[in-house]
């Protein structure tokens, strides 16, 4: 009975994963969390290899080696700006593994001529979620990598088509669960489930990617849990549930930070509607600062709050922004960074970029915490953010982003906004902030402009 070792290994492994998430709560213990997670994984794999059902090791060793050979360079060579893409891709890989295992197990069940059972139901659910998460994540990856347009892709009858495909997939799933069989029915089910995943994400715009990625994370977790049910494996159920809970909480936080519902993100086609609202905007007067003026303004401030957005990531400006922070530090200016929950393309995106550029993490302040301090802030410097600082979200109930919590830079003593031109941004919503008396626009590429200011501040100092 070698199963006793296996059970023990699985129980300790589950404990390791729970500890891993517990230690993840704070930067000071998080790396310990990774270590204990790795230990849990090692135990789970070694335990499984000891199962007496597992008799041939050659292919397993080859697959483990091949996977590591791809995974190691991927982890070390991936630039930090590509983290959202990598996350989407890893959801696709994970879901693919789960779906394939489901197909094989289901094939065995069909071969044995079994009827409806709890297991056949769980397997069908596992395949459905696994397949749709896999293709949906691939579409999300393609959008993030800009292999396809990041704009929402909408067409007539889209909702109807999606609904029809979904119902057909669920109908086939139910049939297969009742009468497990391979062949054409299974193939049709696989195609429909995969197709539904593609249709699901195609209409969703780039700005909604943080929510979508979190939601796909939750689906991947649920699929792993379903597999645990099918195989009677408690470890898989637990880790799937932990992963699923994580994805759902992150998706909820993202939705709350945009004042929108799941349904609205998934079916809203945001960005398209908003673009219509921007049509009426006539050319209005704005004030602009040159590099020299902007640098001088920052240098003479006591406190500066920098608000980064996706534009900073696009311009790859995070290192220059960090240099600006260093330069202002030598002038005894108090600099902090205000991070909106949905800034960027995935949860926590801005934090990772700024941490990479050597900005200490205590200076990365959450929205709710910084808003109270903004009225006493001399300069709010907005770099590549737009909607998350748009006062219309707070003041104009008719705005497309009404009710979305914002970083209230308009309450600061003065505002500077780095922007390429006055063209409406991604969501295309007119931003009153740019026309306030206290706002100055800094026109140009974010990276070049910030670099110019750094040069002014460091070079212009006597001694």
């Amino acid at each position, binding site marked *: 009975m070698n199963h006793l070792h296996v059970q023990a290994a699985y129980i300790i492994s589950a404990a390791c994963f729970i500890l*891993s*998430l517990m230690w993840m*709560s*704070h*930067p000071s213990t*998080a*790396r310990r969390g*990774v270590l204990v*997670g790795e230990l849990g994984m090692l135990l*789970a794999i070694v335990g*499984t290899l000891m*199962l007496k059902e*597992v008799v041939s090791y050659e*292919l*397993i060793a080859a*697959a483990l080696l091949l996977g*590591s050979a*791809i*995974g190691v360079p991927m982890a070390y060579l991936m630039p930090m700006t590509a*983290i959202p893409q*990598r996350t989407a891709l*890893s959801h696709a*890989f*994970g879901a*693919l*593994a789960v779906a*394939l*295992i489901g*197909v*094989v197990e289901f*094939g*065995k069940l069909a071969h044995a001529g*079994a009827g409806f*059972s709890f297991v056949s139901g769980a397997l069908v659910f596992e395949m459905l979620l696994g397949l749709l998460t896999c293709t949906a994540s691939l579409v999300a990856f393609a959008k993030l990598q800009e292999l396809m347009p990041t704009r929402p892709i909408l067409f007539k009858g889209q909702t109807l088509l999606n609904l029809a495909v979904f119902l057909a997939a669920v109908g086939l799933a139910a049939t297969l669960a009742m009468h497990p069989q391979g062949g054409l029915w299974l193939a049709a089910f696989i195609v429909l489930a995969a197709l539904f995943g593609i249709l699901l994400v195609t209409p969703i715009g780039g700005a909604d990617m943080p929510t979508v990625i*979190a939601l796909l994370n939750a689906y991947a*977790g649920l699929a*792993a849990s379903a597999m645990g049910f*099918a195989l009677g494996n408690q470890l898989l*159920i*637990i*880790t799937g*549930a*932990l*992963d*699923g*809970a994580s994805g759902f*909480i*992150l998706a909820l*936080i993202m939705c709350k930070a945009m004042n929108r519902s799941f349904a609205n993100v998934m079916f809203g086609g945001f960005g398209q509607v908003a673009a219509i609202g921007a049509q009426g905007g006539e050319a209005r007067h704005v004030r602009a600062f040159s590099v020299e003026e902007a640098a001088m303004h920052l240098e003479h401030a006591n406190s500066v709050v920098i608000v980064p957005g996706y534009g900073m990531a696009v311009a790859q400006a995070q290192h220059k922004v960090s240099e600006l922070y260093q330069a202002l530090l030598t002038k005894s200016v108090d600099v902090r960074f205000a*991070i909106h929950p949905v800034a960027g393309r995935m*949860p*926590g995106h801005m*934090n990772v970029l700024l*941490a*990479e550029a*050597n900005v*200490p*993490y205590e200076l*990365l302040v*959450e929205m709710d915490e910084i808003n109270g301090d903004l009225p006493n802030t001399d300069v709010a410097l907005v770099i590549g953010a737009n909607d998350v600082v748009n006062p219309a979200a707070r003041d104009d109930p008719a705005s497309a982003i009404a009710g979305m919590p914002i970083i209230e830079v308009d309450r600061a003593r003065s505002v500077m906004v780095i922007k390429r031109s006055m063209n409406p941004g991604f969501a295309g919503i007119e931003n009153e902030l740019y026309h306030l008396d206290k706002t100055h626009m800094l026109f140009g590429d974010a990276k070049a402009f910030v670099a110019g200011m750094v040069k002014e501040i460091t070079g212009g100092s006597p001694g």
Partner: protein
Amino acid sequence: MTSTTFDSDLLLIFMLAAFLGYQLIKRVSSLLHSPLMSLTNAIAAVAVVGAITILGEANATPLAKVLGFIAVTAATVNLVSGFLITDRMLKMFKKGPRS
């Protein structure tokens, strides 16, 4: 290992783990949401154990072997790159000189 009857203990385990997960994740600082995502992704790659069982079975069909091989490889890519990249990200989070 598989049983065809319904086992309510499994649902109980799922429910408890989901509640535990909710409590644990809620406490994670928003600072670390990106590494959290890659960590949970790596942990979820424990699905590799299901794939290993398929691939190592004595009477696996050629099709099962091919699919099992792809599944083990995909899950291994995830767990290896997931843990490593999480650690790489966390290494960058440094405390400032002032505190």
